[in-house]
């Protein structure tokens, strides 16, 4: 029987990056992915590197905003991690960090920006508040209706279609075994670790693993079942849209504090538009069917495009060529679920929220923790799955 130090379940960004870090440390690693590598949210998102407080944290009242803003400590690390990836992998990842703006139009939005900037300063994220003239100087492509913005010089975007596979390739070069189209069929636990049954087109196979990481995104609730656990991560469908290629127009990541919107221009010249507009999850027999893509909601799509054209008027004349959907994972308190699951020794999880921007950081910190390295600053403490342990009082 194959025996590995770590079995990683899920071939998305976090899973592949963790495999790479662990392989570099000399651990024996196997990564299994039920479908194609990068087939989930890691490859479906629009590639924003956003380090300001997210709008979704601000739209559900001050208490939640207060708690959620604590993720900023991680954002600071993520800036460093993306710069490091850029150095280690070069242009193939198309990492561009030329700055990002979160814009405001109304008085209320300007006031919200001010409070947000103050909170960011508290956590050491160097956001700058700009007035209308200041914004226009940096981003003349924005609508004259934009009255203020917060600017963060480190924001930007990267290519979500290639990054995960580049990380997987490094993991493989470092000795990790990566298997796609292979799913977790069963799990048995013993004093010496996990007995894992893998299933693929070639049949079934037993693998013994000391530790298991579930990096299964929106499917985490389902993979938790194999461990008799509630891992409370909820799927949500999102919509993104690409325009045809066009000459350089938008040099930054653009978000809106009062409307759901993110925009950026990829290296290829296409403008990518998203920002959290819903797509519809398909229903299955016993819940949402995550094996089928979420479907476009035309009204949500139009609202998203309206927000884009209101913010950057020149995009109105551009053709869109493709709208696509992805399924992301959310938690009840909006913070990701990352770290060891105390109820099942040896089990780790990483899912839920901003998995593209924060994935490299989750991976680096998790790899260190799983490799037994001490001396970290407890950066992941806030995201411990144990905060929902009460759900598992009768489980495990």
């Amino acid at each position, binding site marked *: 029987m194959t025996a590995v130090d770590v079995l990683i379940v899920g071939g998305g960004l976090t899973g592949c990056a963790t495999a790479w870090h662990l392989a570099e440390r000399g651990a024996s690693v196997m990564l299994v992915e039920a479908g194609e590598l990068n087939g989930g949210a890691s490859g479906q998102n629009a590639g924003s590197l956003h380090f300001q407080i997210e709008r979704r944290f601000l739209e559900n009242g001050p208490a939640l905003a207060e708690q959620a803003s604590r993720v900023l400590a991680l954002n600071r690390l993520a800036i460093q991690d993306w710069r490091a990836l850029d150095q280690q992998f070069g242009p193939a990842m198309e990492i561009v960090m030329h700055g990002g703006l979160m814009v405001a139009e109304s008085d209320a939005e300007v006031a919200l920006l001010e409070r947000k900037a103050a909170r960011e300063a508290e956590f050491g994220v160097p956001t700058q508040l700009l007035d209308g003239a200041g914004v226009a100087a940096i981003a003349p492509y924005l609508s004259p209706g934009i009255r203020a913005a917060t600017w963060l010089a480190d924001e930007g975007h990267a290519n979500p279609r290639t990054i995960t596979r580049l990380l997987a390739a490094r993991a*493989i070069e470092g000795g990790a075994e990566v298997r796609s189209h292979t799913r977790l069929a069963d799990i048995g636990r013993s004093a010496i670790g996990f007995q894992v049954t893998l299933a693929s087109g070639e049949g079934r196979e037993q693998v013994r693993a000391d530790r298991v990481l579930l990096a299964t995104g929106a499917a985490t609730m389902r993979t938790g079942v194999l461990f008799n656990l509630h891992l409370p991560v909820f799927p949500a469908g999102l919509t993104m849209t*690409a325009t045809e290629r066009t000459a350089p127009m938008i040099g930054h990541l653009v978000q809106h504090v009062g409307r759901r919107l993110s925009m950026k221009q990829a290296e290829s010249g296409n403008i990518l538009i998203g920002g959290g507009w819903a797509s519809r999850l398909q229903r299955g027999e016993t819940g949402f069917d995550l094996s089928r893509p979420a479907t476009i909601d035309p009204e949500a799509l139009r609202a998203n495009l309206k927000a884009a054209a209101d913010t950057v008027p020149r995009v109105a004349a551009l053709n869109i060529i493709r709208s696509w959907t992805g399924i992301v994972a959310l938690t009840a308190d909006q913070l990701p679920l990352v770290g060891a699951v105390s109820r099942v020794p040896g089990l780790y999880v990483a899912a839920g929220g901003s998995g593209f921007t924060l994935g490299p950081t989750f991976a680096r910190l998790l790899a260190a923790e799983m490799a037994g390295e001490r001396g970290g600053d407890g950066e992941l403490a806030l995201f411990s799955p144990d905060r929902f342990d009460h759900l598992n009082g009768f489980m495990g």
Partner: protein
Amino acid sequence: MSGMFDLAIVGGGPAGQAAAQIACAAGLGVVMLDEQPRMGGQILRQPPSTLGVRDWLPGATYDDLKAQLHRSEALPGLDWRGGVSVLGLFRDADGFQLLATGRDGRLTIAARRVLVAAGCYDMPTAFPGWTLPGVMSAGGVQAFLKSQQVVPGKRFVLAGTHPLQLLVADQLRKAGADVAGVHFAQGLGAMVGQLLRDPLLPLGNLRPFRDAAAAFVNLRRAGVAVRFGQRLVRAIGSERLEAAEFADGTRIACDVLATCYGFLPQADLPRQAGCAMQRCERTGGLAAVIDRWQRSSVQGLSAAGETTGVAGAEVALREGRLAAIGILLADGLLSESEAERRAAPIRRELAKLQRFADLLARIADPRTAIAGLADDATILCRCEDVTRGALIRAIRATAGPEDASALKLVSRAGMGVCQGRSCEHAVRALLAEQGAAPGGGFTARFPARPVAIADLID
């Protein structure tokens, strides 16, 4: 918005027209949408009413179709919307919402049922030089003649495997073009061999064969060379096409090279809607899977004509009739027995026609002719300029993609303005050649045609 239609028909060709006649006669509220300004489909793509045309599309092949077209254009109760591109189909509680754009911007059509009869398009075939201006699909060249009364060049070379090129060449010749030759990659013996495989087929009764034979004779009489076993290998030119080169080294000077290797179903809308699809064996196109009433796997969505597999106008119009009868049956406007009674003769004709369609597909089989045509520097994805070599490198990379959709994301092939209509079949063939399983093709996305943001949000 104009209320709820009983039936929205996408495509104004023979299949759509045939369905509209039956549906309108039964009192259904029917809307028909097509990208062309006038009804007809590609087979009868009409010139603008402003142009005077002598003897438009003469011949028996076109006569019945023209008669149906004229009846359809005068059909009371049919709401015709020409110049409209359908971008997406969305299911709701009442049926479907069709999001479309035209000259006046966005159009939303609500319909209880939808029939997609969107026709087909020429299979784009990649070979060195095929992106030069002047290299066109034979169907595209023919459309300039038929619908625009324009001879789109001076000296024409036709090449491929499909007998349609004989008709196009003859039409070009009649319009005064210099046709330098028609080139079949397959040998004459192979073509005749296919004909003889089913000796009981009364080919003389079948119009496509009769027309191809007549065109062949006309071309020969006019001194136009029709060559067999002449495989096109390269288009030559710098800023525009200058010559076509064949496997035996022959070079023929021309400013238009029309390629004719077969046709792929227009199936963006059923694919977007999640219909079950099947692969066309010889061309690699994806066709909607339908039941005996032309119903797709998606409730309320039917398909007819080339969208369900390329078999020609005669098959298409009968499938359109069958689809409409199936819809009347589902609506309770026909009893089961009445529907079966009306469908029976149509099914008999279809069974016979399908044998001819299969024969034609065998004769025109492009696979041998196009295998190995593209070299590593040849662009397969015309929109994103992705070469065969780049795709092979992507497939072979460590942790590389295994299916067509994953290869698209890594390589950008299929991510441009045509959304893979030009390259998908070639990308899937390449994956298979490289030992991978291409899967179901690229994931079809909204919008089916590019659309300006302003036109969507206004």
